[in-house]
């Protein structure tokens, strides 16, 4: 089975203070730490497990800067066979549909049975790239997948729905799956393995290599426009609930039930 798995390098902003930069349309990322996107990491693991169980080949695809190479090497150390990094500043990073176009431009020229992406990127939370990619490729897809089975030319994907329910869908191959975190337990990439993975092929391509024009994937031609970023007023400090114990319990119960927290 020929599997392509798309990975993205994202900042970990869970503990960082975020500052909007002077353009007002981006954040100052100089003090962020970066890593492979969480869900993508699970997708890589799943791809490698499928390969280990059924044979085949896993290719890692990443659209991103050179800094992403470490993360790509880690995926190769775990069992990926080769990698492609698409690096071109002309690509609009704020439109998942354009990103899908870029990825599709590469993948559709390859022989593939399965394409996997994470179901969501931790930075922009679009949850759109994988499904858009399937449409670009003209193949079926399933989003939020937390279990995969294969049977003669078909894939059975379990989609994780709200409230612990799963929906099982069956699709013809090739297909695109967007992978949910928790589908497996990603392995560790030992440093010696990462070093050894330096020998595996990592191609770097730009838009010209892919044969797409700037027009198709640049900000100008996007159908959406990021106007401005701003820090929401609600600060993340705890809201303390006041009153007698019973009142506190009542207020909290209300918040839980009516605030959609359950």
């Amino acid at each position, binding site marked *: 089975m020929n599997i392509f798995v798309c990975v993205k390098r994202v*900042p970990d902003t869970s503990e960082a203070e*975020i500052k909007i930069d002077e353009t007002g349309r981006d954040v100052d990322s100089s003090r962020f730490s970066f890593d492979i996107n969480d869900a993508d990491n699970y997708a890589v693991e799943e791809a490698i497990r499928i390969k280990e169980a059924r044979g085949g080949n896993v290719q890692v695809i990443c659209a991103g800067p050179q800094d992403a190479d470490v993360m790509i090497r880690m995926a190769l150390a775990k069992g990926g066979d080769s990698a492609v990094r698409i690096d071109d500043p002309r690509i609009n990073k704020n439109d998942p549909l354009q990103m899908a176009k870029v990825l599709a431009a590469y993948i559709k020229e390859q022989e593939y049975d399965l394409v996997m992406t994470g179901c969501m990127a931790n930075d922009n939370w679009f949850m759109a790239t994988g499904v858009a990619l399937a449409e670009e490729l003209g193949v079926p*897809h399933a989003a939020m997948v937390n279990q995969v089975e294969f049977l003669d030319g078909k894939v059975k994907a379990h*989609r994780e729905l709200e409230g612990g329910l799963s*929906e099982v869908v069956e699709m013809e191959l090739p297909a695109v799956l967007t992978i949910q975190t928790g589908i497996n337990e990603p392995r560790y990439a030992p440093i010696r393995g990462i070093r050894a993975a330096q020998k595996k092929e990592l191609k770097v391509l730009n838009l010209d290599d892919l044969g797409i024009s700037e027009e198709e994937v640049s900000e100008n031609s996007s*159908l959406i426009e990021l106007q401005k970023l701003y820090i929401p007023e609600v600060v993340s400090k705890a809201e303390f609930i006041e009153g007698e114990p019973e009142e506190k*319990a009542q207020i*909290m119960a209300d918040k*839980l039930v009516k605030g959609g927290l359950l």
Partner: protein
Amino acid sequence: MSDVFVLAEHRQGELRDITLEMLTLANGVAEKLGGNTVAVLLGSGVDSFAEKVSGYSDKVLYIDDPLFEDYNSEKYQRVLAALLDDYKPTLLMVGHTTQGVDMAPALAVEKQLPFISDVFEFEFEDGKPIPVRQFYGGKVNANVAFKGDPPYLATIREASVEVGEPSKQGSVEKIDSPLKEDIDYRRFIEYIEAEVGDVDITQSEILVAVGRGVREDKNMPMVEELAQVLKADLCGSRAATDAGWLPHDRQVGTSGKTVKPKLYLAIGISGAFQHLAGMKGAKTIVAINKDPEAPIFAEADYGIVDDLFKVVPVLTEKLKELKG
């Protein structure tokens, strides 16, 4: 024209909350645009849903067809594509739910729609709706505008608006399905309920976590009852698992499990660094602790500074009442 379409969402015989939430939001947008709110309902024998959504919309387009017994993104996509051509609304709203995210991006690509996902509110500029969404785990808001011509497509975040009482009486119009035959390259097989029994707290959506503040084994039934009402799983700090109140595999922290539930209720947990490391990824954290200085409050979204033995039983009762 100028209408706002909303794709009604339902599953296993239940209309999902997101539907009325979207309609509520849509009514506000449609008013500004000077158009109508139109609910699109695809299903088989779901007349009662048609009725329900009509209370929140000006019109309901209802396709009643066994082909829509169960959700299938490919079928929905085809129908919506056809409806967009026929009706040309300004905006189509789809839930930013496991159904919506499985379909909307593909529809956007197919129909070349300006598309923005995970929207929780709309601002207006020159009479045009500007979706507002978030980046970086909710730490940054973003106004993202549609460019080009409608129809526009947005997926709407759950629980972004409160739904009021029904205020409209839309007409229900049954229409023919543009989809004439079944689709074979993606088929719905079945729903599988989560297995009860072995709990894996790393997958839990709601967690009630206990710490040393619970004091004794004999106090556990009190928190177990709370967990039950919340449909939550129980977990704890190392102090709780060490004391044997919970099995070891329920320990959260650096030497336990890393959990990412939607809701984490920390009861009698101080919030040591080794514990916080395992649960800071929770979406909403509620902490009950009698010590106002407990570090857990630095991570919490809601804090209750009080004796847990006074708060927890009442909380359980109130939740029971509210949930009926």
